[in-house]
């Protein structure tokens, strides 16, 4: 039951994020929307790991390993995009 709920929540987050990614014109909002999609996808991976509990395991480690990598990548990407945004919104400086 709870896995279904989490799965649906993940799907909803992905949907909202994709909508934002396509509709919003500003880069900062697009970045936030990307993070929303990311949260949804990571939640889906969490559900996948939990589903292995039916097979008698506490949790499948492979999706968990993937999620850790995914979170690191999303974090690094957000940091890179935020840096670019900060440079762009700052005062015009000589390159």
């Amino acid at each position, binding site marked *: 039951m709870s896995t279904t709920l989490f799965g649906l929540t993940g799907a909803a987050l992905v949907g909202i994020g994709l909508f934002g990614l396509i509709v919003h014109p500003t880069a900062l909002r697009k970045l936030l929307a990307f993070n929303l999609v990311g949260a949804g996808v990571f939640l*889906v*991976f969490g559900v*996948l790991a939990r589903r292995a509990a039916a097979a008698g395991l506490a949790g499948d480690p492979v999706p968990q390993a*993937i999620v850790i990598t*995914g979170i690191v990548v999303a974090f690094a990407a957000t940091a890179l995009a935020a840096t*670019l*945004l900060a440079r762009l919104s700052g005062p015009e400086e000589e*390159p």
Partner: protein
Amino acid sequence: MTVSLLPVWAVLTPVLGLCALLLCERWMRPERVAAPFVGLSLYLSLSMTYEVMTSQAPLVYALGGWLPPLGLTLRADGVGVLLMALTALVMTGVAICAWTPPGDATARSRFSFWALLLALWSALNLAFTAQDLFNFFVALEMLSFAAVALVALDGTRGALIAALRYLLFALAGSILYLLGVGLIYGRYAVLDLAGLREIAQPDTVTLAALALMTAGLMAKTALFPLHLWLPPAHAGAPAPASAVLSALVVKAPFLIILRLWVDLLPLPAAAPQQIMAGLGAAAILVCSVIALRQQRLKLMIAYSTLAQVGYLFLMFPLMPGPAPWQDIGWTGGLLQLASHGFAKAAMFLAAGLIYEALGHDRVAELGGLARRQPVTLAAFAIAGLSLMGLPPSGGFIAKLLLLTAAVETGAWWIAAVILAGGILAAFYVFRALGHALADGDPPMAPVALYRQGAVLALALCALALGFVPLRPFALLAIGRPLEALEAMP
């Protein structure tokens, strides 16, 4: 198959170069530190190609001795070594051409350029040898981060905006890809391509996952209509960076799309293949026309990249056989990939040298170039030959094979698009050449001859692919169909 550590070293060597660069930043000029690693990586890639060609078997290594489904393998098959050799030759040409950087470049941006170049090389080699869906994701992320930073290297406002837009497209692409990976894992609990090949079914979940992954990868490879980020990014980057981005970086996501639809779930003559070819055809027609209208040389070349990427997607419906790698559509598409890689690298580098000499790259004001920089212009013209698909060139053989495959499978609209695309390419290449051959005597800065020679060598590589039409047929089929790794000796 041959068990070999070479694929591992091919991925690791550029990373070691990166570490050396970081350690020696204070004491040595970055190009001097990077040069031995460039040479070593070139040697590794070429020796792998030689090894695969002589043994007719892929080079495989299971990392840490762990076999799939738990472990990761690196596997260099015929297509893999072709792309690694292409990467190595283009990177070497770019390295020679970027050896003496423009006078005003600061030490910091020079250091960043060489570091990012090596990072890109490692990511590309990983993308070409990886064997499971998640390793592809890692390779793509390494690639995107290095490529975005290369676009932003100039630090101008325009370059930063282009880099940000590129990053957002790439991120949207990678998150869609990751969602697809999740669905595949949820359905099959396997991520290894050889393992998936045996159990994958064309059911709703699998097709939805593949659609998500393909859409994400299309954004990264800039297929029309997800191409909007590419022209400003590739035209705004420094010329050597543009050469690498256009010639190599957009090819890695394409190769993964190809492997999804050939190695993971072969579906001969189905709707997805037709849709991809349709988008490719639209890319050829629309982006070639836009290229015709460009006033700046680098933007024209960037739009030409979009059109040439479209040709790659035409190959999907043109290999209907049970073993696609035996069809001429397969050879045609992959030759197009390789010859465009050489030709586009040469063209962007030539545009960079022209910019250095003239101080601008406005197409209408190129007059007098032919007399003052004949070598650069010859390289540009030879690369253009391959883009148009005129003999003798790799582009000619590739487009001829695709055309023949289109006629054989009865896909007349694809044949028409290939012909129309060639004519449009001729228009935009000859337009630039015509202006460059016109009279004029503008003030020009001198450009070292060895740099012009490196550009010419890359263009000649594209030309040379036109003379080896029969050999690649066998090379490109090595290592297919995928076989699971049974044991690690």
